Each structure stands twice: as C-alpha cells, then as structure tokens.
C-alpha cells in the first residue's frame, strides 16, 4: 500500500486536490505580494532607472526569471536568461516550442499574463537613448511610454492580432497619435499612409479604409509591421513573424524587415524556430532550451561550429540543399515537464554525448570566444577536469 502511494505521488503529472489547493493558496500569496508592490502609487525613480553595462546595447537581459504560478505548480518558463541585444543588430532566438522564447520577449514588454505570470528575479535593462530603464520594476505609465514608441512587437498571429471591428487606418493612426501628441490628424494620416507604403501595400488609401477581415494573412502581417515601425522604435521584437505565412510571403516579409532595420537603424529581436530565417537575418544567435540559454554566439559560430549537443542536434535536423539523406535527423525524447525542473542539465536525458560530469548540477557557462558561450560540461575547462568541477560545485 505504502509503496504504491509513494509511487503515485512521485509522478509529476499527478496532483491531489489538497496539494492543488495548497499550491494555489501559496501562489495567491506570492502574486498578491508582487502585485501590491507593483501597484504602489509613485514608485520612486531609483527603483527602475539604472545604468546599462554597455551603452551600445539596446537591451540587456540579466538573469531574468519569469515564472507562471499555476495550480499544478510553478512553471519556470524563463529561468535565468542573460543576453544582450546590441544597437542596430539582429539577434535571433531559436528553440523548441515552449522553451520560453516568447515569454522572454513578453517579459521585456511586460505583457506576460498577470497576475499568474510574473518576472520574479533579474533585470531587463532597456536603453531609451537618454536613460536606462529596468522594465521589471518600471511602473505601468513608464512602460506605456516605452511600448510602441521605443520597443514594439510584431506578434506571431497576424490573423488575430488586429482588432476586427476597427479600420486598418484607425488602428495604425492610434499608435502614431498616441506617441506623437503634437501631430495633427492630417499629419497622422499621412504618416500612416507613408508607413503602409513602406511595408509594400499597393493600394494604401483603399487599405486605410478597410477592415482586417478584408485582407489576407500576409497583408495583415504587413499592417502589424507597419504598426510596429510607425514610431521608429529602437527595438523591434518579431515573434515568429513568418510562421503563419507561406514561403513566398515569408521571403518578402523578411526582406522588408531587413530593409526597414537599415532604414531606421533599429535592433531586431527575431524569435523563430526556422533556422533558415536565422541564418539569413541574424547577427547573433541565442539558443534556448527549457527556459534557459544553452548556447549563444555570432551566427557564424553557431552555424559553423555548434557546440552544445542540442544545437548540434538542431543543425543536424535541418534539411540541407544538395545533401542526400533518407530521413532527417530528429532529436530523440521530449522536453522535460516544466513543473519542478530537476537541478541538472535539462538536456541530459536526450543527449547522445553525455559524460560523467552530466550527473551533476546544471552546468555553468563556458566561454569559447568573446562572443561564443555555451552551457555544457563537454567544454568546461579541459575535459579531464570535469569531475573536479562537479565536485567543486557540489560543495
């Protein structure tokens, strides 16, 4: 009897009603505390105005933890993510579905579904040009000034991202008028038409008066891009901008983004699981796995010399023109359960290159070059000293 009971409670997917109640009570306590702190009136500036580590960066993610407090336990969607987005560069973020790519970007915008989703630890420093703002602690009013104006986001679902009951024109007008209150109605409209032209919409005046349902998916994605770019933001977050589109439109949209980036000299955070898109667009690549960054480097480093077994697996699983294979490689196994993650390398159970040290704690960072960083025991300071490393960390 006892034996069975132990077994069943060990199963991560099993949770008794009592436990669930205890969890949701605890969650409520935690989120209420955070929300209370966030909802204070007149949050002092010292709490959110900081300094950038490197003033050439637009965004610095520093040990960001974004958790979702659900009734079955805390889901650590983003668990200690650190990377930088330099000015005028494109940073690609790749990883499996559910690895925390989107949540990372939503944390930057503070658009995570609250109160369940909270950034509980770490800093996200955003450089507006005049000052650096830690968006994690920033009050709502400051965020509203940043959103759309300094940072904008292109969402992955063009079909549902536009409000169905308003005309295209008024939706684009809205963001321009909001951040440029000095502009007259006429100027705003002209700017909107200009933006629509910029994203390659032929019949601007006509589209201005149309409703979203009258446009195709590609057109709607262009509208979203026009909306995102309307205020010349310093950072564009493109969350799988081409996933819902067919290949010819994909190429057009990517060309468009690249052209626009050069035109207004902004940075792009490109989230995708399409490696081809990354190779074409990105300067830097961040590879995420189960809420953590496992490897980051320049696009050459990641594509030519992938180091982390997961990255190697990813590269092996993409089709290559001219290479004849019977069956594309796929990484065996699946992502571990996001609730109650164990403290060892999350990829261990799927990894084909495990070493003795992998039994230990989650691996620390190893720098292979100034830009290339990997979290894997395979490269931890001389392969021989792996065990020693583990011993040290174990203490």
């Amino acid at each position, binding site marked *: 009897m006892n034996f069975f009971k132990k077994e069943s409670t060990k199963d991560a997917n099993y949770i008794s009603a009592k436990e669930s109640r205890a969890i949701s009570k605890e969650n409520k306590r935690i989120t209420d505390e955070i929300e209370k702190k966030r909802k204070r009136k007149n949050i002092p500036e010292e709490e959110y105005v900081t300094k950038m580590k490197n003033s050439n960066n637009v965004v610095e993610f520093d040990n960001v933890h974004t958790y979702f407090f659900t009734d079955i336990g805390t889901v650590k969607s983003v668990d200690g993510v650190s990377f930088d987005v330099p000015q005028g560069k494109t940073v690609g973020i790749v990883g499996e579905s559910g690895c925390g790519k989107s949540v990372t970007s939503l944390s930057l915008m503070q658009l995570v579904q609250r109160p369940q989703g909270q950034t509980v630890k770490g800093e996200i420093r955003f450089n507006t040009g005049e000052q650096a703002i830690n968006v994690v602690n920033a009050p709502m009013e400051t965020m509203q000034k940043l959103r759309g104006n300094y940072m904008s986001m292109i969402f992955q679902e063009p079909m549902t*991202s536009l409000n169905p009951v308003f005309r295209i024109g008024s939706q684009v007008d809205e963001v321009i008028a909001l951040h440029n209150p000095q502009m007259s109605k006429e100027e705003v409209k002209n700017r909107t038409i200009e933006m629509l032209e910029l994203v390659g919409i032929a019949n601007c005046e006509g589209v201005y008066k149309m409703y979203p349902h009258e446009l195709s998916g590609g057109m709607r994605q262009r509208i979203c891009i026009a909306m995102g770019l309307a205020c010349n933001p310093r950072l564009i977050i493109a969350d799988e901008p081409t996933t819902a589109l067919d290949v010819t439109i994909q190429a057009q949209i990517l060309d468009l983004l690249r052209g626009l980036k050069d035109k207004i000299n902004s940075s792009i955070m490109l989230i995708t699981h399409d490696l081809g898109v990354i190779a074409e667009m990105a300067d830097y690549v961040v590879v995420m796995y189960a809420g953590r960054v496992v490897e980051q480097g320049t696009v050459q480093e990641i594509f030519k010399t992938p180091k982390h077994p997961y990255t190697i697996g990813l590269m092996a699983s993409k089709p290559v023109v001219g290479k004849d294979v019977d069956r594309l490689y796929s990484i065996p196994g699946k992502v571990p359960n996001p609730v109650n993650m164990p403290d060892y390398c999350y990829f261990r159970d799927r990894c084909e290159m495990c070493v003795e040290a992998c039994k230990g704690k989650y691996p620390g960072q190893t720098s292979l070059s100034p830009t290339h960083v990997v979290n894997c025991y395979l490269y931890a300071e001389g392969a021989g000293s792996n065990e020693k490393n583990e011993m040290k960390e174990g203490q």
Partner: protein
Amino acid sequence: MKKFLIRRLLLSIVILFFVSFIIYSIERCLPTSYVEGKARQMSQKAGAKPYDELLEQLTNSYGLEGNILQGYAKWLSNAVKGEFGDSWVWSKPVTEKFKEVIWYSFAMSGISFVFQVIIAIPLGILSARKQYSRTDYAVTVFALIGISLPTFFIATLLKWVFSINLGWFDLYGIVGRMHEQLPPIGQVLDMGKHLILPVVTLTVVSVGNLMRYTRTNMLEVLNSDYIRTARAKGLSENKVINYHAFRNILIPIVTLLGSTIPTLFGGAMITETLFQIPGIGYISYMSLTQGDVPFTMFYMVFLAILTLAGTLIADILYAIVDPRVRVN
C-alpha cells in the same frame, strides 16, 4: 441588405401564419370556455332559458359555431384587415383595451431595462477585469441570487420589507387612494411611486443574466491577441478596456439587448400580477383565464410579432456593430 430584409419579412409572414394557427387551436381546446361560463351564469338567473339553449345561442352570437379550422379562417380573414374584434371580457374593441394598458407595461419594462443595462454592463466589465478577486466573487454572488430567486419571492420580500414593515409604498395597484385629488404632476409622481417596487423586482431578476453574459464575453475578449496588440502599442489600460475591448463585447451584447427590446412591449405577467399593475401582462392573464379568445389571440400574435421583430433587429444590429457580417 434590401434583399435580405425582404426575404426575412416574407419568411416572418409564413411563420406568423402557423404560429397564429397553433395558438388558435390551443385556445379553442382550453377547458375554460367563455361561452360555457356565461351560459351557466345566465341559466342560473330566475326565469332564464335552460343551459343548453343558452349555450347554443351564445355560441352562435360569439361566432364559435363550426370547427377550429372554420373559426381560424374567420379570425384570419378579419385579422388580415386589421380587425381583431371586440374583447369578450372587457366589452370593448381589443385594440382599444390594448392601447389603454400597454403603456403601463412599457414604462415598467423600459425603466427596468435601462437600469439593467446601467448596472449589469459596468459590473460585468469590472468583475472580468478583476477575475477571481473579492469584487468578482461579490458581483457573481449578487448576480446568482438575482438569477436563481424566483420573481414572486423577491416581490414578496420587497413588499414585506418596504410596504408592510416600513410602510413606504402601497402593496398593490398603480395609483394611490388619493389619486383623483392630486394635481396632474402629482398624479404622475404617484404612479411613479407605485412603479418603484415592480421595477426593482424586474431589475433584480434580470440583471444577473446580462452581467454574467458581459463578464464571460469580456474575459474572452481580454484574452484575445488584439488586446495584447493594443497593450503593446502603449495604450493605457482604461483605453484598452473601454475602447478596444468594449467595442468587441458590444457585438454579443447588442445582439442580446436588441432581441429583448421588443419584449418590453410584451409585459411582465408575473410581476404585474403580483403588484396588480394593469399592464398588458396582467390583463392578458385575466383574459386568458376567462377564455377571451379575441383578446388572447391578439396578445399572442402580438408577442409572436415581437419575437420575430426581435430576431430581425438583432440580425440588423449585428451587421451594424460587426463589420465582418455586413451584408452587401
């Protein structure tokens, strides 16, 4: 749009034809027959003719000879011309009696409708914005009380508290004892005072539904992608809710409200009866229990027309607020 309207109107006529036929058949099959009652009454008077003779005489004079089909044909041929005949119970033309009583019902339902909208929609939005908070639970409990408690319970409770214990209002009726002596403005105020309890009753029982409906729709809209887009634009939370989200929940709400507008003329039978407000609901209830075929037929067909008009209005409004269903 024109084609659509014509098609809908033609369809409505066909529906009305069948609906009125069914109502007429049921009406005639009811155990309460006006003529039988009247014949029995008359036969009990001294020196009256025997019951059977009287019944035959009355049946002929009220045009009830022949079977249901013949009776219906006769009723229909008059109704098409706009002649609904005289009410048997009220001894005056049906339409005249109707005009006399409808405005009480309309005033009562209309005021209650306005309160319902003013209370339910903001509360629904509030409780959706603060989902699972204390406010949300409080509003939900209030709404569920309104939904689950029957009209007669709330009416009785209100009467007990405000009429019997506090003595603020009269128990029954639309006018007070001193009504005739009051100046014209006083007469209107007197009627208004008598409408307070019925209106409160009607509002309490119907506000919950609309509130829950608003809450559900608001929650759905708030979770949609375009709300996230609106927030990503940097709009303030109030603008997001009151403009972007509200415009979207208007679609289902207007549809619902549009279809209830015609029922404002339908009367509230239970509430009117409980408070003895001489509105259309109360009067038609009395006509029905006494087997007044012309009046009941008129009222029932009127209700059928209102229902049809309600769905038609809902469809038209739907096309107005939702650009996706605009008919070209």
